[in-house]
């Protein structure tokens, strides 16, 4: 406690020291006066003998201090006092820094939450996504999930593998819950045994599913997601044992998963056991995602080899029914390409995020150069003060330290404000970001982000401070005190540092602008692609699912769907209604399978896989998909089960040469299936997004004979998306009427995924538009900052050279020539910056290649336009101060000083 008391008695100590020293000098003075010296002289002599009073007092005080820290505190105090004295400067710097650091913190929080943090499962490094490559399986094996597993694969792999502790499969689904509130469609996940064991997160209440829950003939159970539990049951722990109606099936609630638990990257309301019947499995049915947990010490390659061994075993153990070849799948060339779960969750968003991070990082560099420039000007104005201090014995380190302390405290202050900026920015970013951004819920301003902000604040402070610190700690003391403002040459040396900064800024701004313009061009290219539907803001879509247990007869299902179409069509303002197995760009392919065209033979004997969709009459009319040849389905085609199909234009061209030639031709699915006649051809639809080619598609009627059963049985898609064309699409009153129309047909049918086609379309472009917005913001900031930089440098040069300008004018220089002199120097700097920037951009934009569409990374238009724009803007930014230079009154200029 002694030091504590000391600390408070310190003020008294300091006073003691000065009193003692004061008395010392006075006594000595009096002594000298007693020897006959006049007072003034005696005082002077006494002081000279004593030495530097201030320094000695400081040394004496230091005994009581932790000297390094306290002098830093003193410097800090000084820095703050100086900042308060120039609020304009402080506000400019702090605002610039706050925006720069804030933008970086925001993006870093996203990068950290999405890419860097481990997944929220115990030992998540051992979790593996069971990704299968199948180059021969056409659209069934796509970029987002590879070839999914079939149930028979799961049984084979899970029973016979040697490398995994546990393994499970699941498939997302929608479930109608009745008996809790009004009928509600909720997100459910059908999971097999092993999924929860693999993820290994204990339930919040109750228990996991066990073996008995997976028994297809056992008791029916369900687990709740945390959000649903809170929303519908108020977080009541007594829900365990309650029975709810899920798709008209009574299920007992056995457990609730904890807050924040997601099934890989999916948030869900219900977990339902898959309850697969082992006895009833075929080879096919590739509809499940798989995850597994590696045994400790096992590598991915070992797991791949292990499962590769089991693929032939799988083909030997199951079949697709009598008369089918179980080794057909050899042509699919299925191989395991397992990947860590985190990699699977992140997907391709990593590239986008790193590019955005790099972009805002570059903006931060520009911010730093701008602030460095401002600090240089400020240090310039203190030039004399610093020189005098150096002459009086302040060491270079001391002066450099003071300048650095000032800049670092600016950095940290900026960082503090930046946290606020980041907080707002994060909300904005999550709002405008693509909704398919994985791990969205894990993004937050946490300790990691705050640590990043702090580190960035200090580092940037050191960075922009070091330039003036290096510059001014090095100054030759003698050269400065004498020749202050009169020499032009001194300012030229000082101007050089600022010029270099401006060049750096211009080149960085160029890189950012080039990438922003490339994104704009990409976006424009994407927008100009014909998606295969028209006027999407007037098409309302919604999912309606009719579960087996509610309506078992497929023919009744089709009648209900038909009734819904009729009821909705009667709503005022509706011009057309239809439905399909899937609408474009919802990442939901109804099916892929083989199609053979009559009279055509295929390499290897097996025809390629085609995308299937199941549609109602008027669906194409509603979507605005053009009929190229032939005619649409009619309801009698459907109810009479006529063997008719429609095809896409690219399928028609590939198979028969032209759309019109396709009408009346025949195709079929399997060799034992009946031939189907092509009645119509529609334009190609980019179902997987405008940046992916439209797949060749076969459109089946909404009710048909199931080709997968041994005997012909009637089947109808139970999960369909309705499309309604109306000028009122998306309005609340309209949706209410639609809901009433649906309920007038069957009151147990909830509507889900209610969107306009425009929303779906925008969402499919969300990743591009997100990147575009981010790069455009960064590019605009960069442009503004570098223009401010150019403006600052030129106007500073003008103010420094006022005298010279006055002389020139007095000697008869033309004002135009003078203006041009300054604009030219700005253009010179810009030119150098542009050349460096172009080279850097050419090298860096290659990294963006995967984000671009329809243009080359070295798009000539962009690389030509951006420098021109930048040069024009630079000319304007320098013209303003240059005009001031030409307006200098020579008499005033020469009289000044």
């Amino acid at each position, binding site marked *: 406690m002694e030091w504590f008391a*000391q600390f408070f008695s310190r003020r008294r*100590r300091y006073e*003691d*020291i000065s*009193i*003692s*020293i004061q*008395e*010392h000098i*006075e*006594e*000595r003075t*009096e002594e000298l006066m007693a020897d006959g010296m006049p007072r003034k002289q005696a005082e002077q002599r006494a002081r000279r*003998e*004593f*030495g530097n009073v201030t320094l*000695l*007092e400081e*040394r*004496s*005080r*230091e*005994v*009581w201090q932790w000297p390094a820290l306290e002098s830093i505190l003193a410097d800090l105090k000084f820095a703050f006092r100086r900042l308060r004295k120039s609020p304009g400067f402080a506000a400019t710097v702090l605002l610039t820094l706050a925006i720069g650091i804030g933008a970086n913190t925001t993006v870093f929080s996203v990068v950290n939450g999405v890419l860097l943090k481990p997944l929220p499962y115990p030992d998540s490094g051992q979790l593996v996504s069971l990704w299968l490559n199948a180059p021969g399986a056409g659209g069934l094996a796509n970029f987002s999930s590879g070839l999914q597993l079939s149930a028979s694969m799961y049984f084979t792999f899970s029973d016979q593998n040697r490398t995994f502790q546990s393994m499970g499969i699941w498939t997302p689904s929608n479930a109608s819950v009745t008996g809790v509130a009004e009928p509600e469609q909720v997100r459910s996940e059908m999971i097999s045994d092993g999924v929860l064991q693999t993820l290994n997160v204990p339930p919040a209440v109750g228990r996991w599913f066990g073996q008995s829950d997976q028994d297809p003939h056992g008791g029916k159970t369900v687990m709740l997601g945390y959000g649903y539990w809170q929303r519908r049951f108020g977080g009541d722990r007594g829900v365990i044992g309650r029975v709810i109606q899920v798709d008209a099936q009574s299920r007992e609630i056995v457990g609730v998963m904890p807050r924040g638990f997601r099934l890989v990257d999916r948030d869900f309301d219900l977990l339902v056991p898959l309850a697969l019947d082992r006895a009833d499995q075929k080879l096919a049915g590739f509809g499940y995602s798989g995850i597994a947990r590696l045994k400790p010490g096992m590598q991915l390659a070992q797991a791949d080899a292990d499962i590769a061994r089991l693929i032939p075993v799988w083909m030997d153990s199951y079949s697709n029914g009598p008369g089918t070849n179980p080794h057909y799948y050899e042509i699919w060339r299925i191989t395991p390409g397992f990947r860590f779960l985190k990699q699977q969750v992140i997907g391709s968003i990593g590239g986008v995020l790193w590019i955005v991070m790099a972009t805002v990082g570059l903006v931060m560099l520009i911010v730093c150069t701008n602030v460095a420039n401002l600090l240089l000007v400020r240090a310039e104005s203190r030039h004399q003060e610093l020189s005098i201090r150096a002459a009086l014995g302040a060491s270079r380190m001391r002066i450099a330290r003071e300048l650095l302390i000032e800049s670092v405290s600016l950095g940290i202050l900026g960082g503090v404000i930046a946290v606020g900026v980041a907080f707002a920015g994060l909300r904005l970013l999550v709002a405008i970001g693509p909704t398919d951004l994985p791990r969205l819920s894990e993004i937050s301003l946490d300790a990691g982000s705050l640590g990043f902000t702090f580190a960035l604040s200090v580092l940037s402070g050191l960075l922009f401070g070091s330039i003036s610190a290096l510059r001014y700690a090095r100054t030759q003391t003698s050269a400065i005190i004498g020749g202050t403002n009169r020499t032009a040459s001194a300012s030229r040396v000082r101007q050089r540092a600022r010029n270099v900064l401006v060049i750096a800024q211009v080149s960085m701004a160029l890189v950012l602008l080039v990438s922003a313009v490339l994104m704009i061009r990409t976006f424009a290219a994407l927008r100009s692609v014909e998606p295969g539907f028209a006027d999407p803001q007037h098409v309302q879509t919604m999912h309606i699912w009719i579960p087996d247990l509610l309506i078992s007869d497929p023919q009744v299902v089709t009648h209900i769907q038909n009734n819904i179409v009729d009821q909705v069509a009667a709503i005022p303002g509706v011009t057309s209604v239809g439905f399909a197995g899937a609408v474009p760009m919802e990442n939901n392919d109804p099916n892929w399978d083989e199609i053979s065209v009559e009279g055509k033979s295929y390499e290897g004997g097996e025809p390629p896989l085609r995308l299937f969709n199941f549609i109602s009459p008027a669906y194409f009319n509603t979507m605005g998909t053009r009929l190229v040849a032939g005619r649409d389905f009619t309801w009698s085609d459907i109810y009479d089960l006529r063997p008719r199909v429609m095809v896409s234009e690219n399928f028609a061209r590939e198979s028969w040469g032209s759309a019109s030639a396709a009408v009346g031709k025949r195709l079929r699915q399997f060799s034992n299936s009946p031939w189907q006649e092509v009645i119509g051809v529609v334009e190609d639809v980019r179902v997987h997004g405008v940046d992916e080619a439209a797949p060749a598609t076969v459109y089946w009627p909404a009710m048909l004979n199931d080709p997968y059963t041994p005997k012909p049985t009637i089947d109808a898609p139970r999960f369909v998306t309705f499309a309604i064309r109306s000028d009122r699409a998306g309005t609340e009153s309209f949706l209410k009427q639609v809901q009433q129309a649906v309920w007038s047909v069957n009151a147990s049918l909830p509507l889900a995924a209610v969107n306009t086609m425009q929303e779906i379309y925008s969402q499919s472009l969300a990743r591009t538009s997100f990147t575009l917005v981010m790069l455009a913001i960064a590019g605009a900031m960069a442009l503004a900052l570098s223009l401010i930089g150019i403006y600052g440098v030129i106007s500073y040069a003008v103010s420094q050279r006022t005298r010279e300008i006055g002389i020139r004018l007095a000697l008869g220089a033309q004002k135009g020539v003078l203006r041009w002199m300054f604009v030219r120097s700005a253009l010179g700097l810009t030119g150098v910056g542009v050349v460096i920037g172009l080279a850097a951009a050419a090298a860096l934009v290659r990294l963006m290649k995967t984000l671009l569409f329809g243009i080359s990374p070295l798009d000539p238009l962009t690389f030509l336009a951006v420098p021109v724009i930048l040069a024009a803007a630079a000319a304007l930014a320098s013209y303003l101060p240059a005009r001031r230079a030409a307006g200098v009154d020579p008499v005033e200029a020469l009289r000044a000083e």
Partner: protein
Amino acid sequence: MANNPEHRDLFPGALELMILQSLRLKPMHGYALVKHIKQVSDDLLQVEEGSLYPALQRMLREGWLEAKTGTSAKGRPTRIYRLTDAGIRRLEKEVVSVEKMFAGITRVLAVAKI
């Protein structure tokens, strides 16, 4: 000042030793200390003000001295330094060690003369 050729540098601790010894006689203020040492050593030793005041503060911190508000000979306020018990113990220890050092140095010098 520090490089005045007439006065050689004192060895470390010497200044403190002299301050302790001087204050043992009677409490004094800073200027009096300087004058006292100068007088007693017959002008052979000159205390640098540059070292005196920091040294006094160091010794105050160590608890060997205490400072009291007082008045100088001319009646102006100043600070009087006085030795504490800890200061006396310190002085005795230092005197012993310095005497040993001088004895050692003397012997070495005596041998060198032969």
